[in-house]
Protein backbone atom coordinates (compact mmCIF):
# COMPACT_ATOMS: atom_id res chain seq x y z
CA UNK A 1 0.00 0.00 0.00
CA UNK A 2 1.13 3.58 -0.62
CA UNK A 3 0.87 6.77 1.44
CA UNK A 4 -0.16 10.10 -0.07
CA UNK A 5 -0.23 13.59 1.37
CA UNK A 6 -3.70 14.84 0.48
CA UNK A 7 -4.05 18.02 2.52
CA UNK A 8 -2.57 20.29 5.12
CA UNK A 9 -2.39 23.68 6.72
CA UNK A 10 0.04 25.88 8.64
CA UNK A 11 -0.25 28.63 11.23
CA UNK A 12 2.15 31.57 10.94
CA UNK A 13 5.29 30.92 12.95
CA UNK A 14 5.27 33.71 15.50
CA UNK A 15 5.17 34.67 19.15
CA UNK A 16 1.61 33.49 19.87
CA UNK A 17 1.36 34.59 23.48
CA UNK A 18 -2.42 34.24 23.37
CA UNK A 19 -2.38 30.65 22.07
CA UNK A 20 -1.35 27.49 23.92
CA UNK A 21 -0.59 24.03 22.51
CA UNK A 22 -4.23 23.02 22.14
CA UNK A 23 -5.27 26.45 20.79
CA UNK A 24 -2.66 26.17 18.08
CA UNK A 25 -3.86 22.65 17.29
CA UNK A 26 -7.46 23.83 17.03
CA UNK A 27 -6.52 26.76 14.82
CA UNK A 28 -4.52 24.71 12.31
CA UNK A 29 -7.17 21.97 12.10
CA UNK A 30 -9.96 24.54 11.74
CA UNK A 31 -8.26 25.85 8.60
CA UNK A 32 -7.87 22.37 7.06
CA UNK A 33 -11.04 20.81 5.61
CA UNK A 34 -9.35 17.43 5.03
CA UNK A 35 -8.18 17.23 8.66
CA UNK A 36 -11.51 16.14 10.15
CA UNK A 37 -12.01 12.93 8.18
CA UNK A 38 -9.20 10.90 9.77
CA UNK A 39 -8.96 7.77 11.92
CA UNK A 40 -5.55 8.31 13.56
CA UNK A 41 -3.63 11.32 14.89
CA UNK A 42 0.14 11.58 15.21
CA UNK A 43 1.30 14.61 17.16
CA UNK A 44 4.86 15.89 17.04
CA UNK A 45 6.16 18.18 19.72
CA UNK A 46 9.51 18.33 21.47
CA UNK A 47 9.03 20.57 24.48
CA UNK A 48 5.60 20.31 26.19
CA UNK A 49 6.95 18.64 29.35
CA UNK A 50 9.39 21.52 29.75
CA UNK A 51 7.46 24.48 28.40
CA UNK A 52 3.87 23.62 29.44
CA UNK A 53 4.19 21.03 32.25
CA UNK A 54 2.26 18.57 30.10
CA UNK A 55 2.84 14.91 29.39
CA UNK A 56 0.57 12.89 27.10
CA UNK A 57 -0.04 16.06 25.11
CA UNK A 58 -1.54 14.12 22.22
CA UNK A 59 -4.48 12.77 24.21
CA UNK A 60 -5.30 16.19 25.70
CA UNK A 61 -5.18 17.83 22.28
CA UNK A 62 -7.46 15.23 20.68
CA UNK A 63 -9.93 15.56 23.57
CA UNK A 64 -9.85 19.35 23.15
CA UNK A 65 -10.62 18.92 19.45
CA UNK A 66 -13.69 16.88 20.44
CA UNK A 67 -12.45 13.70 18.79
CA UNK A 68 -12.41 10.07 19.98
CA UNK A 69 -9.72 8.64 17.75
CA UNK A 70 -6.39 7.02 18.60
CA UNK A 71 -3.45 9.36 19.04
CA UNK A 72 0.26 9.01 19.66
CA UNK A 73 2.85 11.69 20.28
CA UNK A 74 6.27 11.57 18.67
CA UNK A 75 9.29 13.21 20.28
CA UNK A 76 12.58 13.02 18.44
CA UNK A 77 14.17 16.36 19.25
CA UNK A 78 14.36 18.78 16.36
CA UNK A 79 13.52 16.00 13.93
CA UNK A 80 10.22 15.20 15.70
CA UNK A 81 8.10 16.59 12.85
CA UNK A 82 9.65 14.46 10.15
CA UNK A 83 9.60 11.44 12.47
CA UNK A 84 5.84 11.96 12.91
CA UNK A 85 5.28 12.07 9.14
CA UNK A 86 7.42 8.95 8.79
CA UNK A 87 5.30 7.15 11.42
CA UNK A 88 2.02 8.30 9.85
CA UNK A 89 3.16 7.11 6.42
CA UNK A 90 4.05 3.77 7.94
CA UNK A 91 0.62 3.50 9.62
CA UNK A 92 -1.16 4.26 6.37
CA UNK A 93 0.98 1.89 4.32
CA UNK A 94 0.48 -0.97 6.78
CA UNK A 95 -3.27 -0.53 6.97
CA UNK A 96 -3.12 0.63 10.60
CA UNK A 97 -4.87 3.81 9.53
CA UNK A 98 -6.95 4.78 6.51
CA UNK A 99 -6.22 8.47 6.92
CA UNK A 100 -3.78 9.84 9.47
CA UNK A 101 -3.58 13.43 10.67
CA UNK A 102 -0.09 14.65 11.54
CA UNK A 103 -0.08 17.66 13.85
CA UNK A 104 3.17 19.43 14.57
CA UNK A 105 2.71 21.81 17.51
CA UNK A 106 5.24 23.74 19.57
CA UNK A 107 5.29 26.51 22.14
CA UNK A 108 8.58 28.30 22.68
CA UNK A 109 7.35 31.57 24.18
CA UNK A 110 5.89 30.40 27.49
CA UNK A 111 9.08 31.56 29.23
CA UNK A 112 11.76 34.17 28.47
CA UNK A 113 13.99 33.30 25.53
CA UNK A 114 16.92 32.36 27.77
CA UNK A 115 14.78 29.66 29.38
CA UNK A 116 13.65 28.29 26.01
CA UNK A 117 17.31 28.43 24.94
CA UNK A 118 18.04 26.10 27.84
CA UNK A 119 15.23 23.74 26.75
CA UNK A 120 16.64 23.78 23.21
CA UNK A 121 20.13 23.03 24.53
CA UNK A 122 18.73 19.76 25.89
CA UNK A 123 18.70 18.39 22.34
CA UNK A 124 22.35 17.69 23.24
CA UNK A 125 23.40 15.09 25.83
CA UNK A 126 22.52 16.62 29.20
CA UNK A 127 25.05 14.68 31.28
CA UNK A 128 28.00 14.75 28.89
CA UNK A 129 27.54 17.98 26.94
CA UNK A 130 25.03 20.38 28.52
CA UNK A 131 26.46 20.22 32.07
CA UNK A 132 29.91 20.84 30.57
CA UNK A 133 28.78 24.13 29.10
CA UNK A 134 28.43 22.86 25.53
CA UNK A 135 25.54 24.41 23.59
CA UNK A 136 24.14 24.09 20.05
CA UNK A 137 25.58 27.44 18.87
CA UNK A 138 29.00 26.46 20.28
CA UNK A 139 29.02 23.38 18.06
CA UNK A 140 27.72 25.38 15.08
CA UNK A 141 30.44 27.96 15.61
CA UNK A 142 33.16 25.30 15.76
CA UNK A 143 31.74 23.74 12.58
CA UNK A 144 31.80 27.15 10.88
CA UNK A 145 35.43 27.69 11.88
CA UNK A 146 36.38 24.28 10.48
CA UNK A 147 34.64 25.03 7.18
CA UNK A 148 36.30 28.44 6.91
CA UNK A 149 39.69 26.81 7.57
CA UNK A 150 38.95 24.31 4.82
CA UNK A 151 38.39 27.10 2.30
CA UNK A 152 34.71 28.10 2.46
CA UNK A 153 34.38 31.89 2.56
CA UNK A 154 32.48 33.54 5.44
CA UNK A 155 30.28 35.22 2.82
CA UNK A 156 28.85 31.82 1.83
CA UNK A 157 27.18 31.44 5.24
CA UNK A 158 25.90 35.01 5.02
CA UNK A 159 24.60 34.33 1.53
CA UNK A 160 22.59 31.40 2.87
CA UNK A 161 20.89 33.64 5.44
CA UNK A 162 20.26 36.43 2.91
CA UNK A 163 18.65 33.96 0.48
CA UNK A 164 16.46 32.50 3.24
CA UNK A 165 15.14 35.93 4.22
CA UNK A 166 14.51 36.76 0.57
CA UNK A 167 12.61 33.47 0.10
CA UNK A 168 10.49 34.01 3.22
CA UNK A 169 9.12 37.35 2.07
CA UNK A 170 6.44 35.61 -0.03
CA UNK A 171 5.60 32.80 2.39
CA UNK A 172 2.33 33.51 4.25
CA UNK A 173 3.27 31.57 7.39
CA UNK A 174 6.92 32.69 7.62
CA UNK A 175 8.09 34.44 10.78
CA UNK A 176 10.77 36.80 9.41
CA UNK A 177 9.38 38.30 6.22
CA UNK A 178 12.06 40.91 5.68
CA UNK A 179 15.28 41.06 3.73
CA UNK A 180 18.77 41.30 5.17
CA UNK A 181 22.07 42.20 3.52
CA UNK A 182 25.77 41.47 3.99
CA UNK A 183 25.93 44.70 5.99
CA UNK A 184 23.48 43.19 8.49
CA UNK A 185 26.19 40.82 9.68
CA UNK A 186 28.62 43.62 10.49
CA UNK A 187 26.81 44.67 13.66
CA UNK A 188 24.98 41.42 14.33
CA UNK A 189 24.82 40.05 17.86
CA UNK A 190 27.42 37.31 18.28
CA UNK A 191 26.09 33.97 19.59
CA UNK A 192 29.37 32.08 19.53
CA UNK A 193 32.19 33.74 17.65
CA UNK A 194 32.12 33.84 14.57
CA UNK A 195 28.47 32.65 14.52
CA UNK A 196 25.93 35.50 14.78
CA UNK A 197 22.22 35.82 15.38
CA UNK A 198 21.80 36.10 11.59
CA UNK A 199 23.39 32.66 11.21
CA UNK A 200 20.79 31.20 13.57
CA UNK A 201 17.22 30.01 13.17
CA UNK A 202 14.27 32.14 14.25
CA UNK A 203 12.54 30.79 17.36
CA UNK A 204 8.74 30.88 17.12
CA UNK A 205 5.56 29.09 18.17
CA UNK A 206 3.85 27.14 15.45
CA UNK A 207 1.44 24.48 14.30
CA UNK A 208 1.23 22.66 10.99
CA UNK A 209 -1.06 19.85 9.85
CA UNK A 210 -0.86 17.18 7.18
CA UNK A 211 -3.29 14.46 6.15
CA UNK A 212 -1.83 11.21 4.87
CA UNK A 213 -4.09 8.78 3.07
CA UNK A 214 -3.79 5.35 1.50
CA UNK A 215 -5.50 6.70 -1.60
CA UNK A 216 -4.63 9.83 -3.57
CA UNK A 217 -7.08 12.67 -3.94
CA UNK A 218 -7.46 14.57 -7.21
CA UNK A 219 -4.26 14.15 -9.21
CA UNK A 220 -3.21 17.80 -8.88
CA UNK A 221 -3.60 18.00 -5.11
CA UNK A 222 -1.82 15.00 -3.65
CA UNK A 223 1.72 13.69 -3.62
CA UNK A 224 3.12 10.29 -2.70
CA UNK A 225 5.55 9.68 0.15
CA UNK A 226 7.98 7.51 -1.78
CA UNK A 227 10.89 7.36 0.64
CA UNK A 228 11.79 7.86 4.29
CA UNK A 229 15.11 7.25 5.97
CA UNK A 230 16.78 8.05 9.28
CA UNK A 231 20.46 7.87 10.22
CA UNK A 232 22.11 8.32 13.61
CA UNK A 233 25.42 10.16 13.64
CA UNK A 234 28.33 10.09 16.06
CA UNK A 235 28.21 12.42 19.05
CA UNK A 236 29.89 15.66 17.91
CA UNK A 237 32.63 15.30 20.55
CA UNK A 238 33.56 11.88 19.14
CA UNK A 239 34.13 13.17 15.59
CA UNK A 240 37.44 14.24 14.13
CA UNK A 241 35.57 17.20 12.62
CA UNK A 242 32.36 18.58 14.12
CA UNK A 243 31.38 19.74 10.62
CA UNK A 244 31.41 16.13 9.39
CA UNK A 245 27.63 15.64 9.21
CA UNK A 246 27.85 12.06 8.03
CA UNK A 247 24.31 11.00 9.01
CA UNK A 248 22.68 13.78 6.99
CA UNK A 249 25.05 13.30 4.09
CA UNK A 250 24.47 9.56 3.99
CA UNK A 251 20.67 9.83 4.26
CA UNK A 252 20.52 12.41 1.46
CA UNK A 253 23.02 10.54 -0.73
CA UNK A 254 20.95 7.35 -0.56
CA UNK A 255 17.80 9.27 -1.56
CA UNK A 256 19.57 11.11 -4.38
CA UNK A 257 20.98 7.90 -5.84
CA UNK A 258 17.77 5.89 -5.40
CA UNK A 259 15.70 8.37 -7.44
CA UNK A 260 18.45 9.85 -9.63
CA UNK A 261 17.87 13.33 -8.18
CA UNK A 262 19.82 16.50 -8.81
CA UNK A 263 19.37 18.66 -5.72
CA UNK A 264 20.02 21.75 -7.84
CA UNK A 265 16.83 21.00 -9.81
CA UNK A 266 14.28 19.49 -7.42
CA UNK A 267 12.40 21.08 -4.53
CA UNK A 268 14.61 20.76 -1.43
CA UNK A 269 14.07 21.76 2.18
CA UNK A 270 17.23 21.43 4.27
CA UNK A 271 17.43 21.76 8.05
CA UNK A 272 19.32 25.05 8.48
CA UNK A 273 19.19 25.65 12.23
CA UNK A 274 22.59 27.29 11.79
CA UNK A 275 24.07 28.36 8.46
CA UNK A 276 27.16 26.11 8.64
CA UNK A 277 25.06 22.94 8.58
CA UNK A 278 23.41 23.12 5.12
CA UNK A 279 26.68 24.45 3.70
CA UNK A 280 28.59 21.48 5.19
CA UNK A 281 26.02 19.00 3.87
CA UNK A 282 25.85 20.41 0.33
CA UNK A 283 29.62 20.60 0.18
CA UNK A 284 30.03 16.99 1.35
CA UNK A 285 27.54 15.92 -1.35
CA UNK A 286 29.65 17.72 -3.97
CA UNK A 287 27.21 20.54 -4.75
CA UNK A 288 29.26 23.42 -3.34
CA UNK A 289 32.83 24.51 -3.96
CA UNK A 290 34.88 26.94 -1.89
CA UNK A 291 33.31 29.66 -4.05
CA UNK A 292 29.91 28.61 -2.69
CA UNK A 293 27.47 28.23 -5.60
CA UNK A 294 24.12 28.57 -3.84
CA UNK A 295 22.81 30.52 -6.84
CA UNK A 296 22.75 27.33 -8.90
CA UNK A 297 19.90 25.81 -6.89
CA UNK A 298 16.44 26.34 -8.37
CA UNK A 299 14.19 25.39 -5.44
CA UNK A 300 16.34 25.39 -2.31
CA UNK A 301 14.47 26.20 0.92
CA UNK A 302 11.86 28.31 -0.88
CA UNK A 303 10.06 28.45 2.49
CA UNK A 304 12.86 30.55 3.96
CA UNK A 305 14.03 27.57 5.99
CA UNK A 306 14.43 27.44 9.75
CA UNK A 307 16.40 30.62 9.33
CA UNK A 308 13.49 32.82 8.22
CA UNK A 309 10.26 30.79 8.16
CA UNK A 310 11.22 29.96 11.70
CA UNK A 311 11.88 26.90 13.84
CA UNK A 312 9.04 25.78 16.13
CA UNK A 313 11.28 22.95 17.25
CA UNK A 314 9.13 19.80 17.26
CA UNK A 315 6.73 21.10 14.59
CA UNK A 316 9.31 22.18 12.03
CA UNK A 317 9.45 18.93 10.08
CA UNK A 318 5.68 19.05 9.52
CA UNK A 319 6.02 22.60 8.18
CA UNK A 320 8.75 21.43 5.80
CA UNK A 321 6.64 18.60 4.38
CA UNK A 322 3.59 20.88 4.12
CA UNK A 323 5.64 23.42 2.15
CA UNK A 324 7.03 20.85 -0.26
CA UNK A 325 3.54 19.35 -0.68
CA UNK A 326 2.18 22.80 -1.59
CA UNK A 327 5.08 23.57 -3.95
CA UNK A 328 4.49 20.28 -5.79
CA UNK A 329 0.73 20.78 -6.04
CA UNK A 330 -1.20 24.05 -5.85
CA UNK A 331 1.71 26.36 -5.05
CA UNK A 332 3.05 28.22 -2.03
CA UNK A 333 3.22 31.98 -1.65
CA UNK A 334 2.47 32.43 -5.33
CA UNK A 335 5.22 30.03 -6.36
CA UNK A 336 4.76 26.82 -8.31
CA UNK A 337 7.37 24.45 -9.65
CA UNK A 338 7.54 21.82 -12.34
CA UNK A 339 9.74 19.62 -10.16
CA UNK A 340 8.56 16.02 -9.99
CA UNK A 341 10.24 15.32 -6.65
CA UNK A 342 10.58 17.11 -3.34
CA UNK A 343 13.22 16.29 -0.72
CA UNK A 344 12.87 17.11 2.98
CA UNK A 345 15.78 16.90 5.42
CA UNK A 346 15.53 17.32 9.17
CA UNK A 347 18.07 16.74 11.90
CA UNK A 348 18.31 16.99 15.66
CA UNK A 349 21.34 18.63 17.20
CA UNK A 350 24.52 18.82 15.13
CA UNK A 351 23.61 15.76 13.03
CA UNK A 352 22.94 13.52 16.03
CA UNK A 353 19.89 12.17 14.21
CA UNK A 354 19.01 12.97 10.62
CA UNK A 355 15.96 12.13 8.57
CA UNK A 356 15.13 12.41 4.89
CA UNK A 357 11.72 12.12 3.21
CA UNK A 358 11.02 12.19 -0.52
CA UNK A 359 7.69 13.23 -2.04
CA UNK A 360 6.74 12.51 -5.65
CA UNK A 361 4.18 14.40 -7.64
Amino acid sequence: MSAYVVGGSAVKVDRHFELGYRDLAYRVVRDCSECLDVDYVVISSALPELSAHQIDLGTHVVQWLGRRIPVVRVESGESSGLAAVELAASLVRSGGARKALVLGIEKVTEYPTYTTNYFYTLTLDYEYEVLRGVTPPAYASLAMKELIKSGIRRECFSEWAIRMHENATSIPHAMLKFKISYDSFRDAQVLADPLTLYDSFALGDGAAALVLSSTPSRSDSSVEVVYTNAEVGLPAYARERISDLSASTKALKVAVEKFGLNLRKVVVELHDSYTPYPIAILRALGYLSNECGLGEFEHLNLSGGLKARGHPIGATGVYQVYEVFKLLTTGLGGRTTSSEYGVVHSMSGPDNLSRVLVLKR
Partner: protein
Amino acid sequence: MKLSAPQFWRVRENQYKLVITICGDCGKKVVFKRPTCPYCGSGRVEYAESAGVGVVEEFTKVYFKRDSSEDRLPEVVGVVRLGEGVRVVGEIVSIRDSEVREGMEVEAVLRKYVSDDPYGIIYYGIKFKPV
Protein backbone atom coordinates in the same frame (compact mmCIF):
# COMPACT_ATOMS: atom_id res chain seq x y z
CA MET B 1 16.66 24.58 38.10
CA LYS B 2 16.10 21.33 39.98
CA LEU B 3 19.20 19.17 40.16
CA SER B 4 19.05 15.45 40.93
CA ALA B 5 21.54 13.95 43.37
CA PRO B 6 21.16 10.33 42.12
CA GLN B 7 21.48 11.32 38.44
CA PHE B 8 24.78 13.07 38.93
CA TRP B 9 26.09 10.49 41.40
CA ARG B 10 25.58 7.76 38.81
CA VAL B 11 27.82 9.51 36.30
CA ARG B 12 30.41 10.78 38.80
CA GLU B 13 33.26 8.74 37.33
CA ASN B 14 32.91 10.48 33.98
CA GLN B 15 32.47 13.89 35.60
CA TYR B 16 35.34 13.74 38.10
CA LYS B 17 37.85 11.93 35.87
CA LEU B 18 38.71 11.78 32.18
CA VAL B 19 38.16 8.13 31.36
CA ILE B 20 38.89 6.83 27.87
CA THR B 21 37.11 3.89 26.26
CA ILE B 22 39.36 1.78 24.02
CA CYS B 23 37.70 -0.58 21.55
CA GLY B 24 39.05 -4.12 21.45
CA ASP B 25 37.73 -4.61 17.92
CA CYS B 26 38.27 -1.46 15.84
CA GLY B 27 40.98 -0.07 18.11
CA LYS B 28 39.49 3.42 18.27
CA LYS B 29 39.41 5.50 21.44
CA VAL B 30 36.75 7.85 22.70
CA VAL B 31 36.31 10.02 25.76
CA PHE B 32 34.01 8.83 28.59
CA LYS B 33 33.67 5.40 30.09
CA ARG B 34 30.92 3.76 28.05
CA PRO B 35 29.74 0.18 27.54
CA THR B 36 30.08 0.12 23.76
CA CYS B 37 32.28 1.62 21.07
CA PRO B 38 30.45 4.47 19.29
CA TYR B 39 32.36 3.80 16.07
CA CYS B 40 31.77 0.06 15.54
CA GLY B 41 29.25 -0.87 18.25
CA SER B 42 31.50 -3.48 19.84
CA GLY B 43 31.03 -4.27 23.51
CA ARG B 44 34.63 -5.52 23.78
CA VAL B 45 36.04 -2.38 25.37
CA GLU B 46 38.69 -1.49 27.91
CA TYR B 47 39.17 1.65 29.95
CA ALA B 48 42.11 3.89 30.77
CA GLU B 49 42.33 7.09 32.74
CA SER B 50 43.73 10.11 30.93
CA ALA B 51 46.57 12.10 32.46
CA GLY B 52 44.31 15.10 31.80
CA VAL B 53 46.75 17.14 29.72
CA GLY B 54 46.09 18.19 26.14
CA VAL B 55 46.12 20.89 23.49
CA VAL B 56 43.30 23.25 22.43
CA GLU B 57 42.51 22.34 18.82
CA GLU B 58 39.49 24.62 18.34
CA PHE B 59 37.59 27.03 20.54
CA THR B 60 34.77 29.56 20.47
CA LYS B 61 33.67 32.38 22.72
CA VAL B 62 30.00 31.79 23.58
CA TYR B 63 27.43 34.49 24.40
CA PHE B 64 24.36 32.23 24.16
CA LYS B 65 22.26 33.21 27.16
CA ARG B 66 20.32 30.41 28.82
CA ASP B 67 19.12 29.46 32.29
CA SER B 68 22.15 29.02 34.55
CA SER B 69 24.51 30.80 32.15
CA GLU B 70 23.96 34.42 33.18
CA ASP B 71 26.87 34.73 35.56
CA ARG B 72 29.53 33.29 33.29
CA LEU B 73 29.09 34.75 29.79
CA PRO B 74 31.05 34.93 27.64
CA GLU B 75 32.42 31.44 28.20
CA VAL B 76 35.11 29.79 26.13
CA VAL B 77 34.27 26.30 24.90
CA GLY B 78 37.03 24.34 23.26
CA VAL B 79 37.89 21.01 21.73
CA VAL B 80 40.91 19.62 23.55
CA ARG B 81 43.07 16.86 22.06
CA LEU B 82 44.26 14.89 25.07
CA GLY B 83 47.76 13.43 25.17
CA GLU B 84 46.19 9.99 24.74
CA GLY B 85 44.87 11.11 21.33
CA VAL B 86 41.12 11.53 21.98
CA ARG B 87 39.17 14.76 21.65
CA VAL B 88 37.02 16.14 24.44
CA VAL B 89 34.82 19.23 24.50
CA GLY B 90 34.73 21.46 27.55
CA GLU B 91 35.05 24.91 29.03
CA ILE B 92 38.42 26.66 29.19
CA VAL B 93 38.79 28.66 32.39
CA SER B 94 41.31 30.56 34.53
CA ILE B 95 42.40 32.68 31.56
CA ARG B 96 41.10 35.85 29.91
CA ASP B 97 38.95 34.84 26.96
CA SER B 98 41.02 37.10 24.67
CA GLU B 99 44.16 35.11 25.55
CA VAL B 100 42.92 31.63 24.55
CA ARG B 101 44.80 30.34 21.51
CA GLU B 102 44.71 27.24 19.34
CA GLY B 103 47.63 25.02 20.21
CA MET B 104 47.60 26.15 23.83
CA GLU B 105 48.45 23.42 26.35
CA VAL B 106 45.77 22.87 28.99
CA GLU B 107 45.09 20.53 31.88
CA ALA B 108 41.90 19.21 33.42
CA VAL B 109 40.67 20.82 36.64
CA LEU B 110 37.63 20.30 38.82
CA ARG B 111 35.25 23.27 38.72
CA LYS B 112 31.63 24.07 39.50
CA TYR B 113 29.20 23.23 36.71
CA VAL B 114 25.85 24.35 38.10
CA SER B 115 23.97 24.64 41.38
CA ASP B 116 20.51 24.74 42.89
CA ASP B 117 21.00 28.23 44.24
CA PRO B 118 21.17 29.40 46.91
CA TYR B 119 21.21 26.37 49.23
CA GLY B 120 20.87 23.38 46.91
CA ILE B 121 23.04 20.76 45.28
CA ILE B 122 26.21 21.79 43.46
CA TYR B 123 27.51 19.77 40.51
CA TYR B 124 31.27 19.79 39.97
CA GLY B 125 33.13 18.41 36.99
CA ILE B 126 35.99 18.69 34.56
CA LYS B 127 36.99 21.93 32.83
CA PHE B 128 40.38 22.93 31.40
CA LYS B 129 42.90 25.59 32.41
CA PRO B 130 46.23 26.59 30.90
CA VAL B 131 49.20 24.51 32.04
